[in-house]
């Protein structure tokens, strides 16, 4: 099904050869090949993790991992998208937990089975050191897990490849929520402002602005001082 007027390269989609322009991303190549996507597609900008893709190259024994929306096709690419991967998510109420190592071990006991083989790290299209944060999780270092896993988009490739069936990205999510709620230093100015709002401190000032006609509001706006 090569087109007559465009330079194309062959790629293989679920075993079938299609010829696509070499400038396309994997996602656009699938659409070019005639697929209307509902699974394996999301934000189309590298933020949602929906388009996790596994591919091989002809004559190359390696498996490669990518986001279909951020990766350009290569000749003789054998493509498979991972539309959905079942993973375990522990059930918890964040307010009932404490930010102690036991929270991770209790909710995700399989965590301690991690072999540190690093297959997860190789599979991560974000380039996150998944093995590294799993090691931190086994040490119970919640802050380290939260920091190292922050750019995770939960595409699930780590979990799909894990020989001992971890759901790394859910462990990481738990760690980040524990960090955000319990370990991050509180912002005194925020606590104070919430209290002021609950006491109606700004009602009068807002009412005053709301009572102004447009011209007066405009001149207030144009004259406002801007923090350097």
């Amino acid at each position, binding site marked *: 099904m090569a087109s007559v007027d465009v330079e194309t390269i062959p790629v293989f989609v679920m075993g079938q050869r299609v010829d696509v322009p070499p400038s396309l991303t994997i996602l656009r190549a699938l659409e070019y090949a*005639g697929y209307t996507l509902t699974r394996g597609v999301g934000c189309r900008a590298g933020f949602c993790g929906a388009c996790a893709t596994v591919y091989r190259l002809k004559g190359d024994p390696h498996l490669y991992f990518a986001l279909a929306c951020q990766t350009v096709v290569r000749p003789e690419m054998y493509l498979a998208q991972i539309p959905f991967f079942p993973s375990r998510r522990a059930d918890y109420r*964040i307010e009932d937990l404490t930010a102690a190592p036991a929270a991770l071990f209790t909710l995700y006991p399989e965590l301690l089975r991690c072999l540190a083989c690093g297959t997860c790290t190789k599979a991560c299209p974000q380039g996150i050191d998944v093995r590294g944060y799993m090691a931190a999780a086994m040490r119970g270092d919640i802050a380290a897990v939260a920091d190292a896993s*922050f*750019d995770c*988009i939960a595409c699930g490739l780590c979990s799909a490849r894990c020989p001992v069936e971890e759901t790394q990205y859910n462990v990481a999510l738990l760690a980040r929520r524990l*960090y955000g709620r319990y370990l991050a230093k509180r912002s005194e100015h925020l606590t104070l402002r919430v209290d002021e709002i609950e006491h109606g401190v700004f009602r009068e000032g807002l009412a005053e602005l709301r009572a102004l006609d*447009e011209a007066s509001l*405009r001149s207030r*706006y144009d004259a406002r001082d801007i923090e350097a």
Partner: protein
Amino acid sequence: MAYTPAMLESIARVEASRQARLSSTYPRMTPQERDDVLRRFHPDYIAQAAREIRLGVCKGDRTPLELADVLEAPPQIDPATFALQGSDLQTDVLIVGGGGAGASAALMAAQGGASVLLVTKLRFGDANTMMAQGGIQAADQPNDSPVTHYLDVMGGGHFSNNPELVEALVTDAPLVIHWLEQLGVMFDKLPDGSMNTIHGGGTSRKRMHSARDYSGAEIMRVLRDEVRSRSEGIRVLEFNPVVELLTDGQGRVTGAVLLDMETREYKIVHARAVILTTGGGGRLHYQGFPTTNHYGATADGVVLAYRVGGRLAFLHTMQYHPTGVAYPEQIVGQLVTEKVRGLGAQVCNIDGEQFVYPLETRDVEAAAFIRECQDRRTGLMTTTGQPGVWLDSPMINLIHGPGTIEKALPAMVRQFKGFDIDITRQPMLVYPTLHYQNGGIAIQPDGSTGVEGLYVAGEAAGGIHGSNRLMGNSLLDITVFGRRAGAAAAVYAGQHEAGAMTLEHLRAWNREREAAGLTEGRPAPILLPDYTRHIRAVRKEPLVPVSGG
């Protein structure tokens, strides 16, 4: 995909002027200059790109051609033949849309004692929320106040905003930050625990809270996890968009018809109240612009609400984000966060000269970029004919110290690195991209719409931002009004029994279409844009122009 020789030549001029620019930023425009550049160059002012809507409660309102088409469209289902018998699912509150507004609404409706069913077109969390990079505004610093925030929002929206909604927005803002933090959102902080806030375009105080440049993703994944933690009160149904609302025949919304994207079967939901949190319509590609929006952003909620009598507000104005990617081609139109300018990066033309203050409001900034390229002809042109100007990202590490870009903008670094461009060392080529629906269905501060039983929150709602939204007020808006709509809908559901389910509104709609002489048109909501290349003509060409990645 690294830069071309012509680009590198221009980059050399950007580098040559960098040292001098570090101590000299282009001045802000006067109010008159702002008005002038908007009128002459902002896409909203191109008269032939919009038209009057020919039916419905806001007949005569102007809106982009592509949006007018879906607003006037025939329904997806035919009321004469559709078998509306019984219901497959029953709930107190039905929430349509699984982004930040929907998740916030679900949590508050459940907290209010309502049973909740959240349905979403793709996966839960597939939404523009997930893609928001820059941050969320809240006046919580000691030198700031909700009153100051109010003034910035009104000015940014050209004083056309609904003041009641703005008051709700700015007053709830610090409360929402606190709520999110209690749920476990990790905001960027200074060592003493205070929020590391910066400026956005049009802010008079540094009140932009961020989570690196994954701000929306961080908020979305926490809200989604919290909803999943409350599965006894909130059911989630993915890949099941709403294709029609149901009414009692007397103006009250009483449920919805879902379309299962996998089986193509319809399902009927009987609900006491419905909240639409379906987001915007960037995938309609107004004026052929590429978009930063999610694949599913096809204005579904606005279409559904308009058909049952929801009023439109500010749908004549769209937001074109000044800094969409202009190169490489594969990611044209995708977002380069305003945080890049918030951290000090300036904008330069082909000669390495500044031509605009970097943090004008988005509409003004975008119009200035378009003027530079189209009128003054001092932008760059890529080999595919895409114009652009330079966003000088390497300045950030010179201003704030080495490593700042890597720490504050990891998503941007990663995205460009994938195409062999190192934004810590080289500037980015950018051009305005379709980003946000400034308006939507008119709401009250509790998310109600004037249509009984129908609530709207998030990007699908209108009035909060007037004709131009400021950076960081969208993540704020979805959480503030998502929460408010969820709470109000739970109260409503507690006070009203489930109503009768009919398709009377569709019969009326079809009669009105006929009276207006409208016989053609592709049914809406369209659910997804059509980007598929069809070798043999099996159906009409897509109505939606194919552009963007």
